[in-house]
Each structure stands twice: as structure tokens, then as C-alpha cells.
């Protein structure tokens, strides 16, 4: 597998516990990933040993905290292969990143009668902010559908694009179907019409190395807690040329240059978009999380997770009468499924009794539920600290639960 599994498990002591008298099997990684010791230690360090507000003080702790915060920005810049550190904005998470663009970009560029394109497989966080922008500016939201196999119907993209299309927003990886979307192709098509593209990277950054310059995407958003970092911190990458002309999102401290009651001028990038005291502990710890996965190697992580995905998919199919939603060959370690006619709530409740954590419900993706005409789904999602032995426990649990109905 390219890394020592036992060593990895030692980095995540939280996994070594029992739930409902069974060894805990954590298969809800697409919702949030667990944090390795180095990240927890960093959070502790910048809570217990070092703490002062950033960018404001001349004293020792303020200088140290500011340096660590800005260093984290450099780590993210290198991680995404961005051209400049000014293009990396710290936010609260993917949701805020997308809202920032939907608010600020649309205020500058969206007018009555314009259009925005999203896809049918988006998380609500990449639908609702655009809907709200469309309402504000009397614009129209258009939707690129996906096939039953769980792949975007790329042949329809050109037919949706018009002269009024102002931005295309699409997930790199679907949080329900696991599909890795052909974003290179989408960006290429969009750019041939001079349309910028936002990529929702919440589900992709933990599994793949990203090069925003090679992709040539205009915006890329992701969350810290899905890549083994803390909650409440996220990233927005934006091309400098766009961020420069976009108006500020939130007003307050840090984002200003000079304030008078007559007129306020704004700070330069990236601070223009970071109003108020940021979650600097989260940002610093996110830097550690990124270094942690980089040290292991994202390619190794992706290869191992793919092995888990294949193993689980085969075992699950062998159970019979099990439907998997999303069967694209380009897929991350996410399996949404339905077992017999068992309701996902019942399945999730009983799996929990056997110590296995999965996600059930509508998965913040109502349009995906509607596509398959189901009211809810069960989702198992894997990380590189999971094992085939855990998948065996999961399969045994499914068999046992099935016998109860």
C-alpha cells in the first residue's frame, strides 16, 4: 500500500475505541475526517502555549501567531499550486467560500437576464448560494444533469451555455455518487466561451493533488475538516485578476485600508476578503494537516483508498439485492447504497448498534435523491486509516441486519 498502516492508525488514537461494545468502525469520512495527532498538537500549541490576535500587535505572541498564520497560507498556496499567496483566502469552510463568490462575483458581474450553470449532483452548498444570487439579480439557474450511472451528461453542456452564462459551478467530486467529474474538460469548454468556473473541492482535496494553474480554474473551494484538519476553517482560491475586481464580501476589521465616515478604502488581497479576527488556530492547524497528508503522499493515499473502494464494492455486490448509486469508473471512496427495502434510518441505527458509523439521510443533495426517486440513502465513505478488515465487519453487519427484516 506504500505506507505503514499500523503507523497510520497510531496517528489517529480516536479510532481505537469501542462503540456499543464493538470496535468502532468509522465510515463517515466524507462528512468529516478524523484528525491526526500532529494536528491536535498544533491546535493545543496555539491555544495553550501561544496565543494572540494576528496582524495587530507588536508583541512576541502576536508576531509568532501572525507568522504561523501566514505560513499556513504559504502551505496552502504550495498545496494548490497557486501562482501567488494573495490568491489564498481563509474562510470558515467550503460553504462560506462559495457564498463569498456567489455574493461578491455576482454583485460585480451578474445582471438581469444572466445565467449561472450548476449540475444536478451538487451539494446544497453549491446550489443555494447561486439560487440566492439569481434571486437578487433576476438571473436564471440552469442545471447540467447526470446519467443514472452517476456521470455528468457532458454532451449537454454546450447546449446550456449561452451569451448570458456568467459562471459555471461544479463539484470536483460528488459527495453522494463519488464521481470524479471531468473538470478539465468543463473548464476548457467554459473558457472557450470566456466563462469562469468555480470548483467545489470539498470531496476531492483529501484524495488528489490539485494544481489550480494546470486546471486553470478560476475559483477552487475546500474545507479543512475533510482533509484531516479542524472544522470552521476553509479555503477559497481565486485568480488574482478576479479577486482584485470583486467587491469585499464582509465589512469589518482587517479588510480595511482607511476608515472615515465619509468613505472607507479596502485593504489589499488576501486581507480584503478576511474581515474580522479569523480562525487563526484553525488555519495554522490546517497547514499541519496538509503537511501531514503531503508527507504520506496523496497519490499513495488515493491508490490505497481506491483499493478499499473496489474491495467494498465487490463485497457489497456479492450480497445481492443491493443497489449502489453512482458507478462511474472515476470514483473516490464513497458508496451510497440501498440494501433490500430496508430504510436508511433503520440501517444506520442498527449499524451504529454494531459500532459502525455511516451517514444516512438526504446527504445535503435533494436533487440526487429526486434523481433516483428515493427519500434517503445510506453512505459509507473511506479514508486511508480504514482497512479491509473493517469492511469485512461492515459486510457481516449488513448480513446480520438483513436477517432481522
Amino acid at each position, binding site marked *: 500500500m506504500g505506507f505503514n498502516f499500523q503507523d497510520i492508525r497510531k496517528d489517529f488514537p480516536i479510532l481505537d475505541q469501542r462503540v456499543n461494545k464493538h470496535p468502532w468502525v468509522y465510515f463517515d469520512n466524507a462528512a468529516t475526517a478524523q484528525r491526526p495527532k500532529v494536528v491536535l498538537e498544533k491546535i493545543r500549541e496555539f491555544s495553550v502555549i501561544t496565543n494572540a490576535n494576528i496582524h495587530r500587535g507588536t508583541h512576541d505572541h502576536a508576531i509568532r501567531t501572525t507568522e504561523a498564520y501566514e505560513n499556513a497560507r504559504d502551505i496552502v498556496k504550495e498545496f494548490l499550486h497557486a501562482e501567488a499567496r494573495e490568491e489564498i483566502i481563509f474562510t470558515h469552510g467550503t460553504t462560506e467560500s462559495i457564498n463569498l463568490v456567489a455574493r461578491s462575483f455576482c454583485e460585480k458581474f451578474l445582471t438581469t437576464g444572466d445565467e449561472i450553470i450548476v449540475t444536478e449532483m451538487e451539494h446544497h452548498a453549491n446550489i443555494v448560494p447561486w439560487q440566492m444570487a439569481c434571486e437578487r439579480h433576476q438571473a436564471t439557474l440552469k442545471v447540467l444533469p447526470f446519467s443514472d450511472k452517476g456521470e455528468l451528461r457532458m454532451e449537454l453542456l454546450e447546449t446550456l451555455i449561452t451569451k448570458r452564462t456568467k459562471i459555471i459551478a461544479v463539484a470536483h467530486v460528488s459527495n453522494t455518487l463519488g464521481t470524479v467529474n471531468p473538470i478539465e474538460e468543463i473548464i476548457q469548454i467554459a473558457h472557450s466561451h470566456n466563462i469562469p468556473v468555480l470548483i467545489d473541492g470539498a470531496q476531492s482535496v483529501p484524495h488528489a493533488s490539485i494544481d489550480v494553474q494546470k486546471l486553470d480554474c478560476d475559483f477552487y473551494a475546500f474545507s479543512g475538516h475533510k482533509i484531516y484538519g479542524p472544522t470552521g476553517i476553509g479555503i477559497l482560491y481565486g485568480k488574482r485578476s478576479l479577486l482584485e475586481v470583486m467587491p469585499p464580501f464582509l465589512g469589518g476589521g482587517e479588510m480595511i485600508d482607511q476608515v472615515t465616515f465619509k468613505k472607507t478604502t479596502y485593504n489589499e488581497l488576501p486581507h480584503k476578503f478576511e474581515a474580522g479576527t479569523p480562525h487563526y488556530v484553525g488555519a495554522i492547524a490546517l497547514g499541519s494537516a496538509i503537511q501531514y497528508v503531503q508527507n504520506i503522499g496523496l497519490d499513495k493515499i488515493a491508490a490505497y483508498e481506491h483499493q478499499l473502494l473496489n474491495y467494498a464494492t465487490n463485497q457489497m455486490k456479492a450480497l445481492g439485492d443491493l443497489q449502489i448509486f453512482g458507478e462511474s469508473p472515476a470514483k473516490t471512496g464513497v458508496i451510497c447504497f440501498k440494501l433490500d427495502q430496508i430504510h436508511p*434510518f*433503520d440501517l444506520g*441505527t*442498527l449499524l451504529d*448498534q454494531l459500532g459502525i458509523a455511516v451517514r444516512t439521510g438526504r446527504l445535503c443533495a435533494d436533487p440526487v435523491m429526486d434523481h433516483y426517486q428515493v*427519500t434517503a440513502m445510506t453512505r459509507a465513505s473511506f479514508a486511508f486509516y480504514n482497512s479491509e478488515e473493517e469492511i469485512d465487519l461492515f459486510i457481516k453487519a449488513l448480513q446480520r441486519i438483513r436477517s*432481522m427484516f
Partner: protein
Amino acid sequence: MTIEEVQQEIIADFSAYEDWMDKYTYLIELGNELAPIDDAFKNDQNLIRGCQSRVWLQQKLDGEFLIFEAESDALIVKGLVALLLKVFSGRTPQEILDADPHFIDAIGLRQHLSPTRSNGLMAMVKQIKLYALAYKQISSQKK
């Protein structure tokens, strides 16, 4: 039997099961036994929406007693619904308002009734109480 006696009976029934699996198997059994409500009543007006599962609840007054019928699309929830109906259906509005469904806690299924669980059960209890309050107000106006 009073509401309290019914609750004690349910607690006694469940005390026979030590293993969670038996407990849930019994709940699933109760769910399967619960008479389905007429599809016509499975409308938006009677729907108690949860992210996880859905519950439909409808009521009618029979003399001074409030009769409830309910169903869920999830079997475990349906089993719990059956228990709540046993406790609350066929009672006077005042009895319903005075009752606290403590049996859920006693049989070790409290997590299903916490306000953060989005399975619709908590909302169902609230809705039952609201109906009871409404009928109580109507009947006191008549007097």
C-alpha cells in the same frame, strides 16, 4: 388502563430483552404489526418531515377521546410510533397534556426522541400535544 399503566406495561415488555438486537427485532415486529394508515392521509398536511425519516400523523375526536393514527417509512420509527400510539391514542386532551412519555427513556431508546434526532418522533409527540391543546380549547369554548 391509565397512561402510566400502559407505560409500565411497555417497560415490563422490554425488560425481557437484554440484547439490543432482540430489542430492535421487537420494535421492527411492532412496526410491521402497526395497521397502515390510508394512503389518502399520507399528505403534506399530516406529514412530519425529518431529514432521516418521515412520519404521518392524523387525528379525530371520538366523543371526548382523541384518536390518533400514524405511520412512518422507517420500520424502527414505525415501531416507536406504535408505542407512542399505545400511550397517547384514545385519551382525553387533558390526559395527553399531562402525560410525559418517560417509557422511551426507561427502555433505553431515549436517543430516538432527543430534539436533535431528525427522525420526526420528537415532532410527533409535540404535534400530539398541540392537537390535545387545540381540542381542549375548543371544548372549553363550547362550555
